[in-house]
């Protein structure tokens, strides 16, 4: 149970949030132009690493806003939180 600093509401308990998987996967603008493999890559392939990971989180029981989190999955340490559309502040 970690604490997440929502960029809109501040520090809140993890139980207020919903995880949304890997961040920075952009929905292709022209899906019909993609091969099956390329589409499958967008649709199914997600990283699940032990270490620093870029993730989407939603303040589901709060402001309902989506944002990005950089989290170390090995110890749940959160390195940065930033809004949708912003560039990652580190790396």
């Amino acid at each position, binding site marked *: *149970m*970690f*604490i997440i600093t929502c960029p809109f509401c501040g520090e809140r*308990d993890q139980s207020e949030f*919903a995880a*949304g998987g890997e961040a920075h996967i*952009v*929905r292709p603008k*022209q*899906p*019909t132009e*993609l091969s*099956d493999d390329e*589409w*499958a890559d967008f*649709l199914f392939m997600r990283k699940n690493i032990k270490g620093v990971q870029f993730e*989407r989180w*939603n303040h*589901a029981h709060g402001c*309902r*806003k*989506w944002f990005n989190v950089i989290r170390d999955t090995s*110890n*749940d*340490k959160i390195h940065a939180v930033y809004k*949708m*559309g912003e560039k990652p502040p580190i790396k």
Partner: protein
Amino acid sequence: MSENFRSSETKFLDKTNRISFIYNGKKYYGYKGDTLASALLSNGVHLIGRSFKYHRPRGIMTCGSEEPNAIVQIGGNGSFTEPNVRATEQEIYEGLEASSQNCWPSVEFDVGGINNFISPVIPAGFYYKTFMWPRKLWYSLYEPAIRMSAGLGKSPTQPDPELYDHNHLHCDVLVVGGGISGIIAASISADNGNNTVLIDDKNSLGGSTIFQDDENFKIDDEISSVWLNNQIKNIKNKKNLIIKQRTSLAAYHSYNYLLARENLADHKSLNERANKLRQRLWKIRAKKVILATGAIERPLIFNNNDRPGVMLASSVKKYIDYFGVKCGNKNVIFTNNDSAYETAISLNKKGINVTIVDIRGKSSSVLVKNAKDAGIKIYWNHTVVDTKGYRRIKSIQIMEMSEDGTNVIGSKINLVCDNLSISGGWTPMVHLFTQSGGKLKFRDSDQVFLPNTATSDQINVGSCNGDFELDDIIKNTISDCKSFLSSSSTDFDLIKVSCPKQKENKNVWLLPNDKPLGKTKPFLDFQNDSTAKDIKLAMREGFRSIEHVKRYTTTGMGTDQGKLANMHALGIISETAGVKMGSLGTTTFRPPYTPLSFGTIVGRNVGTFFDIIRKTPMHTWHENHKAEFENVGQWKRAWYYPKTNESMNQAVQRESKAARESAGILDASTLGKIDIKGTDASEFLNRVYTNAWSKLGIGKCRYGLMLNEDGMVYDDGVTTRLSENHYLMTTTTGGAANVLSKLEDYLQTEWPELDVWLTSVTDHYATASVCGPNSKNILKKIFPNIEFNDENFPHMSFKNAELDGIYCRIMRISFTGEHSYEINIESKYGKSLWEKCMDAGKEFNITPYGTETMHLLRAEKGFIIVGQDTDGTMTPIDLQMDWIVSKKKYDFIGKRSLYRSDTMREDRKQLVGLLTDNPSEVLEEGAQIVQDEKKQPIEMLGHVTSSYFSPNLNKSIALAVVKNGKKLKGQKLLVPMKDKTIKVTVSDFIFFDNKNERLNA
């Protein structure tokens, strides 16, 4: 009981408060403050239970939460009973009932004791190896027999009547453990201005120092117990310090989130605790945590080291010094270190006979000198090779150890005793530290695992950090707390401590014996009956990883999580395999630290508080009209309305017929409703639904199908264009919240450029759906100002309206295939709307119908229900709904996936209708469908998704998903049931009015 073992005065118990309790049907007495263990010992009772596997008699070993043997059943039968309670932690109260576990017919004579004699043929892995064949005997013989003998206590048979509670707690500093280091840490923290919480699992603070009256241990020239007692009085007056006693930490999660159970009533009599909270689970978020969890004494591993009367030396000291109870009249102390000499000296001072057996050759500690001066006989360089006595230890045999400690030499010496106190050194309690993600390091000098790197803001102080001498404990606690809390000075800066120092360490994990290992029983895990032999057997069979050896031998897998056993298991593995202990690592310590009852975990979330119950505004009407209810998500929906003596089937048949013949009314308030506004609302709907929305006229309704990005049907519903940039979307009842989340996700992350605003209005409007040939006539009566002809108000359109001055929305849409209207009104008027419809419909025999009839009526029309006829693997093409998938639109959610090779396969499971050859036979939903019953293995083609007897067609109908179903129309298939096989024919899935003539009837 003739003899009283309460030998000395004690200031820790209230001697004026004598308490009676029942143990195994017999009445005993103790004092307020006694644990069940100390009270039983004071009555001379040592035999508590039978061991798990061999049913050997077992007694009290310890005085705390690490107790492996003395676990009992508390309370009588029924709801108040609780199994596996540690007698060493349970305080006695007037009328307490406790009984032994794992024995039949009694703890004194236990039939299962036969296992002890056949133990050579039931080694580790016995069950895995033996009950493999013949296979068919497993269910009929092996499993029932093993089940009967497995398990320790008995579960309650009734619901738990006690009250439990959850509470949140936020603090600057949480100190865990109320021993001397915890007291000092809490004091420093509070003085430094931190809001501090100190928790301790016992009923009195002070750990083991509070009864340390030995002159050798002095703090600021006072005896250590006196000094500590003053400190405890001191901290109780500190304003920013909360002290929680009888509170044990259950779990330590990351980010300093901790769970602690506060025991509020388990020490009170049933009368005193009536209608009061039993336990409270504290959910603690601390900025900083100081763990002062202490250390537990290690046993020694030798032959027959498990008899009642074999106890940890430090516990024997607590029983005599704290509870005033002697654990025996003739005591032998068996040790490898100096700390056990404190026990010997305590006993000796109280005039109790004591002898010491020490595996070391000598020690220059002052404690040893004191023991010698007191005339205590010490056998240096000796080990215990056997013990005698079945229900209580009677004597031990000792032998001299060889120089290297691997063998015994000389002849046996027999020592008569009724108590054997053992001490194998100390193990720091690092469980909580590792739960939080902390990593350990190994200290070779005294073979202990210590906290190394922490992942959260916390420190460990005292013996849990590897300090075992009083001066180290105090000085390091003070300096560590100062730097951790950035405190420049404390009350303890000039503290003076004097204490004896530990001399000459000697550690032997498995003590030598004159007999071969195979002929001895050196127990490691007392609760699970695993011995050193089992560990060695596992290693001979190729197990190397500590985690594997643990599971194969079950070492450390009891309710005590092997608090006593694990270090010795590791030690023996490391010796046998020739691997350094530090590199072996430990098994994982998991929460809870001590077992939690289910009641504590669920708190108040029981019964009606288990989940939210959502009711529509018309709910009381349904109740008053005897509706049966169905749970749909959190909603209670009217299921059907049985008349007197009517079965569910009869009610549904009647409701279904009435709806088609004249008029029916359904409470549709639970359907999800999402209000969509914005200049890009039309474009947004184009992207989320499979069909086109740009050309939908204002005031018109359209059915939409929503896919997941993988092309599978996700939700469906009718959306109405209320004005140019304003839509009202309806979703399935169960999908409402998820659909809103999904749409928000796309809006915020993929299409932030769209000007669209979503608001859930599910609870804001109540909906009554009136259907049937007379629905128009009913609405005319309620809304006289609206023209209900097909030109002015055609199917799939909407009108604003007023009912007694209250705004309404009327949609002419149909889920039954009948001419039908849905009226939306502000929730608080929902019931009066419903009653108005019932009044106006009376002359047309308007019949309220529930969800079951709704399902039947739509199945007659072949309308799908997302989640019943689909399961996340159905595309719109599979559902034969190609017509709703726009070919022209460039993109929508899931479009690309409809062109993947897998989704384009022609032999996917597809939605079809099924007609039974015998028209009165109704299929079971979920039944499997096959073509050929004889071919083995039988190929499963699909399953029945919806099935009803249609009163309007007078035959059985079903929807099903069947492999390659589209091409199987007209073919015969089989539905094999338990007692028969039903023949069916694949049909069209629209069974009724397939020209939609009734919509405009």
